[in-house]
Every structure is written in structure tokens, then in C-alpha cells.
């Protein structure tokens, strides 16, 4: 009777330990993805801001992408999948620019993602200042 009870307790403790590990790994994964999402939001905002400050429409993409890459590096978005695209179709004084930051989370970022990937993206729209006189 005592032997059976001890076996029962061992199985339950094994189940509990497994559950604990799964929950902890899941929490670490979620935290990692949240960190990437926060980074992407910052990348999109800063890229849109830099693009809105570009002196000409020809430099909008370049300014936005350079700024986005710099901010992304600061948030450890370094697996090479970070992309920043800037919609400059409404670039004009008083107009809008929209930056979209995308990133693929892989096992290089989160070892728990053994084979899968998670695609994330964030965007931000910025008003182009109406009164500007910037050097080219």
C-alpha cells in the first residue's frame, strides 16, 4: 500500500516538474517575443521620424532604413532578418510617411524555437513637418 502511494507521488511530481519546465520555457519564449515586438515598435517609430526629416524624397528610404537598422541593433534584432520599408508616397510638407519594420524570430534569437519561426511586424506613421529647410 505504502509502495503504491510512493509510486503515485513520484508520478505526480514528475508531471509537476514537466509542467513547471514547460511553463518556464513558455514564459521565456513569450518574454523574448515581447522584447522583439518592443524593439520593432521602436524601429518603426524612429525610422518614420528619420524619414520624415529627410531633405528630399530620394533620401526618404535611405534615412529611414539607416535609422531603423541602428535602432534595431540596439534592441538586439541581429539575426539579419530585420527589414524596414518606408512608404514615401505622401512625402511632402504636412504630409505623412509610414515605416514598416518586420523581423523573423528564429532559434538564433530564442533557442526554444527549435524548428519554427515567428514573423512579426510593426508600423508607425509620422507627420512630415510643414516648415523645413534642410540641407541636402
Amino acid at each position, binding site marked *: 500500500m505504502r509502495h503504491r502511494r510512493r509510486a*503515485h*507521488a513520484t508520478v*505526480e*511530481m514528475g*508531471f*509537476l516538474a514537466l*509542467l*513547471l519546465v514547460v*511553463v518556464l520555457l*513558455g*514564459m521565456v519564449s*513569450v*518574454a523574448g*517575443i*515581447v522584447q522583439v*515586438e*518592443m524593439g520593432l*515598435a*521602436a524601429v*518603426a*517609430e*524612429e525610422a518614420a*521620424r*528619420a524619414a520624415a*526629416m529627410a531633405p528630399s524624397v530620394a533620401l526618404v528610404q535611405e534615412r529611414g532604413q539607416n*535609422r531603423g537598422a541602428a535602432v534595431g541593433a540596439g534592441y538586439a534584432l541581429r539575426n539579419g532578418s530585420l527589414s524596414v520599408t518606408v512608404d514615401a508616397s505622401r512625402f511632402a510638407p*504636412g504630409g*505623412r510617411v509610414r515605416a514598416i519594420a518586420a523581423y523573423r524570430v528564429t532559434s538564433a534569437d530564442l533557442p526554444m524555437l527549435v524548428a519554427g519561426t515567428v514573423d512579426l511586424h*510593426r508600423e*508607425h*506613421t*509620422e*507627420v512630415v*513637418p*510643414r*516648415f523645413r529647410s*534642410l*540641407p541636402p
Partner: protein
Amino acid sequence: MSTAFIAVLLPALLVLAGLAIDGGQVLVVRRETQALADGAARAGAAEIDEAAARIDPSVPIVLDPAPAAAAATAYIAEVAPTAQIVVTQVDPTHIAVRVTSAPVHISLLQLARVGPTVRVQASGTAEPRTGITAPGQ
């Protein structure tokens, strides 16, 4: 003994997982709402008083309060229609806004009597400046 242990620990684990999932989601929405508030404030601060600047270009530029508030409100209506904006202060020197996010749905944290939805608020302030050539100035 183990069964009792599980019965106590399981809800705690679920709440902990909820803290990670729902808390993480709220953090992300908080970051986005802050970006919206900052963008709205900047949109408002772009509405300078042209007439005053033309009369005497040597004086510091100032905001035109009514168009500034309208520009900040229009920005949120355009880029985040589900969010709400309140212009908390606007005068010739600066504009301050408070943006409230759309409801964020809470899942596991409802076990801890949080939710079923929460809203996130963020504030932004901006002032008209001259001589800005790059972000961060």
C-alpha cells in the same frame, strides 16, 4: 500530498504564465500607445503661428493652439481610429496630449480578476523648435 501541491501550484503557474502573456501584450500596447502620443504631439507642434512668425521673424516661433489641437486629434483619427485622444494642454509654447489605447483583451490574468479588457494610457508633449536636422535634437 502531491495532489494538494499541484492544486495549489497550478493556479499560481497559470497566473504567472498570464503575467508573461497578458503583461507582455500590455507592455507592447503601452509602447505603441506612447509612440502614438508622441506622434500626435509632434503633429500638433508642427502647427506654428505663421502670422506671428511673419510679422517679426526674430521672435521665437509659437504654436497656433486651435490648429495644433486639431492636428493632433486628426493624426490619431487617421493612424489609430480605435484609440482616444485628449488634448490636455495647448498654448503657444507647447502641446500635451493623452492617448488611450483600444481595449486590450486579457486571457489568463482573468484568473487574478484582471480584465476582461484593459486600456493603456500614454502622454506626449511637444513644442515648436527650429534648427532640427536629425532625430534626437
